[in-house]
Every structure is written in C-alpha cells, then in structure tokens.
C-alpha cells in the first residue's frame, strides 16, 4: 500500500505554529514507517510547511506516483492550545475517507497525530488495534530504586508512575488501559499489587508467602496469572482481576515461573525446571494437560504469545549470550530474532502482533528495544539508567 504525505499546512504564520507543524510531520511519518505497512511517498516541498491558502491538492500528480492514499495535515498553535487537523483521501476517487480535528492542550500534540495515524491504519488496513497510542510499561532504576515507568510506544514521554521506596518489579499493563499489576517489596515480602493509574487506588492481590511476582493478564482483562510461594514452593496461580477467585494451578516440587496467558484464555505457557533445566511448557488454564514445548537448548525461558496465538517468543541461553527466539506453534519452525549481543530478555508482543519489545544489555546497561516480529529494525527506546521488563498494551 502506497501512502502519500502531503505538506503539513500551517494555519498561521508564526514560529510556534511552525514548530507544531514540524512535530506533526515527524510523528506522522515515523508512525507510518514503524508500522511497515506502507510505502511512503513524500511531497516535493514537504520541508517548507507552507501556510494554508485553500485546497490545492494535486491528485493527478499523486496518481502518477502510484499513490493509493494521501494524508493532508493542518496545524496551528494558539497559546497553550493546539489544533491539528488530519484528512485521509482516496487518490483514485478524491473521496475524503476520514477527517478529524483535535483542539487539545499542547502537551498532547504527539497524541493527536498518533490518534490520526490510528485512524489511517483502520481505514487502509482495517486494523482496529490502536497501535500508535499504545503504551509500554517498564521498570527503571534511573531515579535510584527500580520503579515502574510508562512511555509511548515510540519511546516518547517517559514518566514514572510508582513511588515506593524499595523495589517495584514486573509491571503488566491491563487491557483496560487503566490498571497495572506489579510486584512491590513490602517489608520481608514481595507482594502483588493491582494499581489504578488514574485514581491511584491500590489493591493487594496476593501477599502470602515471601514471593508474589511475574503477573500476566488474560487478553480479556478478567484474570491475572502469577507465581507465588504462598504454599511454600514457587507455583503458578490465577486470580480474577478484582482480587477474588484465587486458584493454584501447578503442583510440582520444581521451579515454576513466567506464566503467560494464551489469547484465547484457554492455555497458559510457563517455564519449569522439572526436566532438570528451565524449559517452556504449556498447559490448560486449569493446570491440566501439561506438555513440553522446547526441546533444544539448555535454558529456555520467558514465553510470550503473539496476539493471534500462533507464535511464541522466548529467551534461550546460547553460550554466554541470551537471545530471543520465535516459535511457530503450528509448524514448529524456530527463528532466532536477536544475534549474540549479550542478554536479550523479556520479549513481549505489540498489540498488533507485528512488533516485539524486549530488554538488552548490549550497550553495557539494560535498555528497552523494539523490533519487528522478524527481528528487523531494532531500535533503542530508553537511555537513562537500567530499564527492563517491558509490557506493551494498546490503550483505548
């Protein structure tokens, strides 16, 4: 699919409108590029950010360049407010397929463009998952202790959301866009907390035993699976996201870790060392029908389902390195996605299933990276302190 980027027109001839227009163009272009779903053709004089003087769209010229759709943006700054307008046109018919205007506070400038990019994705490809407004939660020690942070999918607007003095670990963003589950060290225990990011309300989901950690949501947001030592050994449990219905589902003297819910909610993949070494297994969500999934390598860990449930990424130790692999559950085909650059860990899928976020210490410190689901286009999103355990969620 070929998409043409028209000029971003300035609705006023002042400096702050120019700055806004520049951001609009950059965000739009990098969103569409990131998706890998479009061939992008830029207008000849897009750098000029011309002042708008009425409609002047050269549909014939775009048609000659074999462009299917064009995007036309307008921008204006008015004090602390901005107005961003986006239109998506069908080049063949000249029809307006989608038009939106956002008159928002200036701090939401990037969000307005992400919003319109979501609209483009929906109209052109029918993709309803709002990828460009999705968020990534992660832990960082940039301010001292490990705390939970949130950022836009493209690494912008990194902000801290927890304020505990000891340690906050393993964030899992809920599909409702409102809740996040994580482990926090309280006294002599690591307890599992459900935190409402808007109201600040906290619910303790599990605080028995010394360890309650590694939470993962079911796709419908109704349930959370996690590990706990509440019965002595680290076992896998499930609980409703309102804190009721706690259920133990593994009963094994071995290590059980890293549970991940399949998108259908019927299965849970996890790691166990019941064979002597950590390997990945899958079971029904009730804990029955346990099967081993990985048979090569001495150390396979941290499974994560693709949103359509067809694939699983995991981490394998290869010599002194840890790399991320992708297993096709149908064909059993395995692809290595990272290449021998120290530790690459904690892979999690993007909501649209086309990208993968992970952490790596390839530069010396742990940072969050994003890559396409085939391992291409690896790019670093964090730079301060150590950043680990990303969780990617589309927020409505």
């Amino acid at each position, binding site marked *: 699919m070929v998409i043409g980027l028209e000029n971003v027109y300035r609705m006023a001839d002042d400096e702050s409108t120019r700055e806004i227009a520049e951001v609009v163009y950059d965000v739009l272009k990098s969103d569409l590029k990131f998706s890998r779903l479009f061939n992008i053709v830029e207008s000849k004089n897009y750098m000029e950010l011309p002042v708008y003087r009425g409609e002047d769209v050269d549909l014939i010229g775009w048609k000659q360049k074999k462009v299917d759709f064009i995007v036309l943006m307008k921008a204006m700054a008015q004090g602390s407010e901005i107005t961003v307008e986006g239109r998506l046109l069908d080049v063949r018919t000249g029809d307006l397929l989608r038009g939106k205007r956002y008159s928002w506070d200036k701090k939401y400038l990037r969000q307005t463009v992400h919003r319109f990019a979501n609209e483009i994705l929906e109209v052109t490809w029918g993709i309803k998952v709002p990828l460009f407004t999705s968020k990534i939660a992660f832990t960082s020690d940039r301010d001292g202790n490990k705390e939970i942070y949130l950022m836009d999918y493209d690494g912008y607007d990194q902000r801290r959301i927890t304020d505990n003095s000891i340690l906050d670990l393993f964030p899992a963003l809920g599909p409702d866009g409102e809740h996040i589950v994580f482990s926090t060290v309280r006294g002599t225990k690591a307890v599992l907390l459900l935190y409402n990011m808007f109201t600040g309300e906290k619910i303790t989901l599990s605080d028995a035993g010394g*360890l309650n950690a590694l939470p993962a949501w079911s796709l419908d947001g109704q349930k959370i699976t996690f*590990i706990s030592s509440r019965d002595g050994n680290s076992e896998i449990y499930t609980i409703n996201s309102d804190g009721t219905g706690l259920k133990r589902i593994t009963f094994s003297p071995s290590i059980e870790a890293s549970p991940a819910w399949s998108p259908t909610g019927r299965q849970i993949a996890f790691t166990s060392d019941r064979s002597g070494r950590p390997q990945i297994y899958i079971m029904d969500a009730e804990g029955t029908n346990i099967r081993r999934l990985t048979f090569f390598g001495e*150390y396979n860990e941290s499974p994560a389902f693709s949103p359509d449930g067809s694939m699983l990424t995991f981490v394998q130790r290869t010599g002194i390195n840890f790399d991320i692999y992708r297993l096709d559950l149908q064909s059993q085909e395995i692809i290595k996605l990272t290449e021998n650059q120290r530790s690459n860990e904690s892979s999690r899928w993007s909501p649209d299933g086309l990208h993968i976020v992970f952490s790596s210490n390839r530069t010396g410190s742990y940072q969050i990276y994003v890559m396409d689901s085939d391992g291409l286009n690896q790019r670093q999103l964090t730079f301060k302190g150590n950043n680990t355990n990303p969780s990617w969620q589309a927020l409505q």
Partner: protein
Amino acid sequence: MKANRMLILLVCLFLACSFACKKKPPVEPVQPPPPIEKVEPVEEVSAPPEERILTEEQIFASTDLEAVTKEFKDVFYDFDKYNVREDQVANLENDAQYLNKWKSVRILIEGHCDERGTNEYNMALGLRRATAARDYLLSLGIDASRIETISYGEERPFATGHDEDSWWQNRRAHFVAIAK
C-alpha cells in the same frame, strides 16, 4: 584463755597443798606473768572489687539486629543451581547453632542470583536458593516459624561486576536478622 585459767588454778592448788603439807615458812606466792597477747604487724586486705562482667545473655540483649545479622554466614550456590553445596554446610551449621542458642532470633533468608538468566526466572531461582537454605536449617531442628524467605532475583547484587569474580558473590542465600 580458759585453759590458762585452769592451769593457774591447778598451779595454785598444787602450791597451796605443798605449803600445807610441808608447813614451810610462809612465802609470798609468786604469780607467773600474765600471758602477753602477741599483735603481729599485718594489714587487713579487703577483697578486690569485682569487675562487672556481662553475661552472654546481657551481651545479646544489648546488640542490635545488624550485629546479630553479622553472626550469620551466607550460603553460596553454583550457577543455575539451588542445591546446598557440601562446602556450604559448615556455614549452615554455624547459623543453626546460633539460632539454637538464641531462640528469640527470627531471620529472613534472601535468595539472590547473578545477572545471567532472565530476571523473571531468577526471581523463582532466588526463592529456591532461599528455601533450600531454610530447609537445611529445618533439618537441623530449627523451627519453621522463625524463618521467612524472599527472593530478590538478580535485583540486589552484592558485587556489580560482569564476571565470575562478582557472579559467585551474587549467587547466595543471605541471612538477615529481623527479630531477637
């Protein structure tokens, strides 16, 4: 004294008798000189003041948890393992001995891992290291209610290097006194 008096009495009786019997001219009886009490030139020495020596119990009562923590020896593990190594048994015996001596002490055993491995799995592995150390103490007769366990996985390294010099120090069960 009494003996002396008796003696004097006897002597007197004897003399009186002999005078009476022999009828000798009356002579003034000569009394023996009174016995002189000997006073030796020694000084009375009082017992030395006793130093206030603290009992073990008193010492224990005055130490803080940090000092109690230092009485414990940590247990170290092999890479990716959580079984108690033979060379670590002496450390656990030391710890059990201390716990047996001071029954009021309660401890937290923290499980730790080196940076290798995922930090998810290391959370579970650290827990196993902590529980392996705890189970050994239980086998030595320590009451389970006195021991809590937590895992810090690879989150709280003791040494921050990126080689075995640091890694071996980070694969451990670390003992912390939490009550006494």
